[in-house]
């Protein structure tokens, strides 16, 4: 547990002074990583975070898919934000997001078939992932494409990071492996160690995420006022 909290509490480890990235742009990426994390602070996207975090592999693919969808939809919507009639803006956003998600689904079916079967309905559910629509409404509709891209990247990574950390604990304690490789040595099982079955149920993810939220908020008192 302690390693996670250290990483979460020290967020500003972005590469030193890439000239293109101003301080403001860096914050766009790093804020969603900790102080404005979509899962632990905004408490969005919980549904998929509970469902597909039994294994590192699926969590990783889900994270990459969401990062891709959030970045692309943010950029696309930001590019055409001036042309979208306000009356139909939500529908246009939804259409772009849905198009991207179907595209990701097709790619997974073609290049990662096993994983696409494991993710099953959850790839389709990226469409309804509040993070994606939330970022479009809150950010992409009123910012330039590059800023929107960084915002999408930050939120996607912030989401994916939590997913992977949760999956790390669930796969390690639930199945004794990481990315499908056996980690817990055989002799421990012979000595009576057993995998923790509850870790494989969605309830375990709820406890873990709840734990993260608690740790994060007790380390950063200013967050307790957010929600």
């Amino acid at each position, binding site marked *: 547990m302690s390693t996670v909290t250290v990483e979460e509490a020290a967020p500003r480890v972005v590469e030193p002074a890439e000239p293109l990235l101003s301080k403001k742009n860096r914050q766009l990426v790093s804020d969603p990583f900790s102080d404005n994390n979509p899962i632990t602070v905004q408490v969005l996207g919980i549904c998929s975070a509970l*469902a597909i975090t039994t294994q590192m592999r699926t969590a990783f693919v889900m994270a990459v898919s969401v990062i891709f969808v959030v970045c692309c939809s943010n950029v696309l919507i930001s590019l*055409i934000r001036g*042309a*979208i*009639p*306000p*009356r*139909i803006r939500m*529908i*246009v956003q939804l*259409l*772009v997001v*849905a*198009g991207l998600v*179907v*595209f990701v689904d*097709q*790619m997974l*079916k*073609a*290049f990662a*078939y096993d994983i696409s*079967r494991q993710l*099953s*309905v*959850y790839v389709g559910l990226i469409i309804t992932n509040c993070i994606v629509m939330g970022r479009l409404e809150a950010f992409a509709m009123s910012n330039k494409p590059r800023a929107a891209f960084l915002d999408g990247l930050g939120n996607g990574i912030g989401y994916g990071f939590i997913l992977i950390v949760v999956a790390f604990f669930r796969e390690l304690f639930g199945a004794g492996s990481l990315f499908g490789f056996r980690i817990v040595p055989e002799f421990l099982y012979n000595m009576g160690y057993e995998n923790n079955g509850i870790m494989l149920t*969605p309830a375990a993810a709820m406890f873990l995420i709840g734990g993260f939220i608690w740790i994060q908020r007790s380390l950063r008192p200013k967050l307790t006022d957010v929600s």
Partner: protein
Amino acid sequence: MYSNKYTVFFAVGVTVAVAVTLALASSGLRGLQDANFARAQRIAILQTVMEVDVETLDRDYDAYIAERVLDYQGNTVADVAAFDLNVLRESRKSPEDRLFPLYIYEGQGQTNYIVPIQGAGLWGPISAYLALDSDLTTVDGVIFSHEKETPGLGAEIATAEFQDQFNGKQLFAGSGEFESIRVLKGSGNDTEDRPHDVDGLTGATMTTRGVTDMFREELSLYDNVFQGMNP
């Protein structure tokens, strides 16, 4: 303020752009997706009777599996490849017009007859490959697959835990009567001495009912096919 005309044109434009992009992606990736699907089918067929090593999949499949297509009377149909049959489409035809693919496994001193069966779950189609012993009544293994059953509930039919329960169950009663295999309602039923029952899944009554129906309907047809078949 935008005019109505502009709004409509914009909506149509965005829709067409998205549709064209997706159509291109879909047709471009079709070949790869079909290959993946076929591979998954081969894995499922072999998995009913043996552990599958994905490295040697194609070699194992060619070595152990013989494909046949039969009609309802059990006659072999020569000019159709079993693997190319669209089993879902076939399952909607009347029995007399339908073709029945059969995969015959021969290896390690045993012969198994593997049949693909189709049914309906709660949200969409479900299907299975069922391996029968050479007596054509004892189940040696079954692999379920589904498209959109509820994860954690109906989707559990595709887990080893559920599938393994079918091993050793009987399709026919001792008297030779077709009994099929039923999935009981709820979990925790004692099915130890009941050769035609398997324990169900709590919260997945509709999906498991679909499994029961699929077994009864499809296997009663295959029973007729088997009776006319020359081994």
